[in-house]
């Protein structure tokens, strides 16, 4: 009887095994290359973003700026804040949308750290377009520029006149001003409660954040106060009002501590400058004691609740007109 069958020669076995191995390696390597590419891209974007923020972190006294950051692909921004060292540090990491999956974000790239910028993000910042605005904080000298980055539209209910003017002057298109929460809902489609910010009006049922003014007599309105939001109560003074509204409590508290670390270091720097002017025989500023008090108050700040005390000390420093240490 004739046996019919297929001869499975060594060549065939080798071809099958080698082919399968090569295919597996090729698929695995392409996956790895893609991941490495995404990781590299995320790291580069984070570095480019922080370089872009550099000029925004040093604008002139009292200046405010606003603008839009547009990117080529969707990103998710992660911010980590630390209070170690003499100035603390903030780390920005970015994850980009996966190449073949529009819904998922890839791994975070390498975090880019800096200690001279204070960036406040809204919770879960993601998208390809971000609005930003900066405000400089003076306590009493120029201390830092506060950079606030948002990815949503907001509605401010009954804000004070100066906030309204600032929003209009800067042309912040992602913030609208209304008299009631109802007007916000009417004017904004797909509005979420977290996007409604009420100034001494409304209730926690309708407003995402409630801003309360605690400024004393003779002080500018809302120069001291607190913001109640789902992440907790954040106390503010002066320009810290905006970061308190837009950022989450943990980030806010950490960045406030970092700003105070810088205030303390700047107070030391101005003390040193005062001494140099005195040694050169130019003038006597007479500010050393006041600067030391400010340095101590800023250095020992524990939470944003202590900001009010720092503001009172800063407000009490009056520069000697003939020996000004700062402009």
């Amino acid at each position, binding site marked *: 009887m004739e046996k019919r069958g297929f001869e499975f020669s*060594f060549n065939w076995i*080798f071809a099958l095994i*080698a082919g399968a191995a*090569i295919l597996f*390696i090729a698929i695995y*390597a392409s996956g790895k290359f893609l991941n*490495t590419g995404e990781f*590299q891209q995320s790291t*580069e974007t984070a*570095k*480019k973003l922080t*370089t872009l923020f*550099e*000029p925004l*972190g*040093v*604008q*002139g006294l009292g200046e405010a700026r606003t603008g839009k950051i547009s990117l080529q692909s969707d990103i998710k921004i992660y911010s980590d804040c630390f209070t170690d*060292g*003499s*100035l603390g540090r903030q780390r920005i990491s970015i994850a980009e949308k996966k190449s073949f999956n529009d819904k998922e974000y890839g791994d975070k790239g390498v975090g880019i750290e*800096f*200690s*001279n910028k204070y960036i406040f993000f809204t919770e879960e910042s993601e998208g390809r377009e971000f609005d930003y605005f900066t405000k400089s904080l003076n306590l009493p*000298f*120029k*201390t*830092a520029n506060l950079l606030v980055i948002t990815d949503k539209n907001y509605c401010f209910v009954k804000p004070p006149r100066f906030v309204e003017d600032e929003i209009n002057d800067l042309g912040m298109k992602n913030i609208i001003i209304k008299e009631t929460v109802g007007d916000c809902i009417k004017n904004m489609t797909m509005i979420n409660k977290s996007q409604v910010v009420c100034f001494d009006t409304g209730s926690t049922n309708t407003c995402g954040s409630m801003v309360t003014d605690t400024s004393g007599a003779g002080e500018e309105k809302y120069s001291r106060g607190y913001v109640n939001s789902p992440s907790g109560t954040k106390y503010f003074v002066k320009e810290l009002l905006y970061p308190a509204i837009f950022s989450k409590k943990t980030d806010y508290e950490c960045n406030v501590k970092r700003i105070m670390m*810088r205030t303390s*270091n*700047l107070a*030391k*720097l101005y003390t*040193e*400058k005062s001494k*140099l*002017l005195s*040694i*050169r*025989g*130019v*003038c006597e500023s007479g500010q050393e004691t006041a600067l030391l008090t400010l340095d101590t108050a800023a250095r020992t700040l524990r939470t944003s609740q202590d900001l009010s005390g720092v503001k009172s000390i800063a407000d009490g420093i009056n520069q000697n007109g*003939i*020996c000004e240490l700062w*402009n």
Partner: protein
Amino acid sequence: MELKKITNKKAQFKIQQTAFMILGTVLFFVLVGLFWLTLKSSSINKSAANIKQEEAITLALTIADSPELTCGTQCIDYDKAQALKNTRLFEAVWPIRSIEIRKIYPKIGGGTIIECNSGNIDSCNLIRIENKGITSSNGGTASSYVKICRKEKNAEGYTYDKCQFGEITIKT
């Protein structure tokens, strides 16, 4: 018997052929991988160098406005710069190798570099603030023109701002 010997030799030859084939295939992929890695690492190095240079340029243009140095727009406070040199604050604020602030006009020193200290304020032309913690030299370098101002007292005893024209160089 003879036929078995021939078959054995044939089989040995096939095994040798296969081993060489596997070795060749592996070598080919290793070479392709190495080539890809070289290309990739050179492009990463290039983009890192570009980013560092961009950072140096941005810093050179903006550092004069930072609270630690500024006395106005694009103005460097001489006394703050000296105070910054005396403290270790610089190293914490900017993770860069050095800042050099050079007085350009009026010309001082006739081309010789004279570093400033508390005793030679009028006859020096360079303030150098270095970060001794950074030793790598593959960063970027960029310069920008600035005003360098300091407080002085005139003959009548009034203080005024004395300004000179200068250049700030950042090495990242």
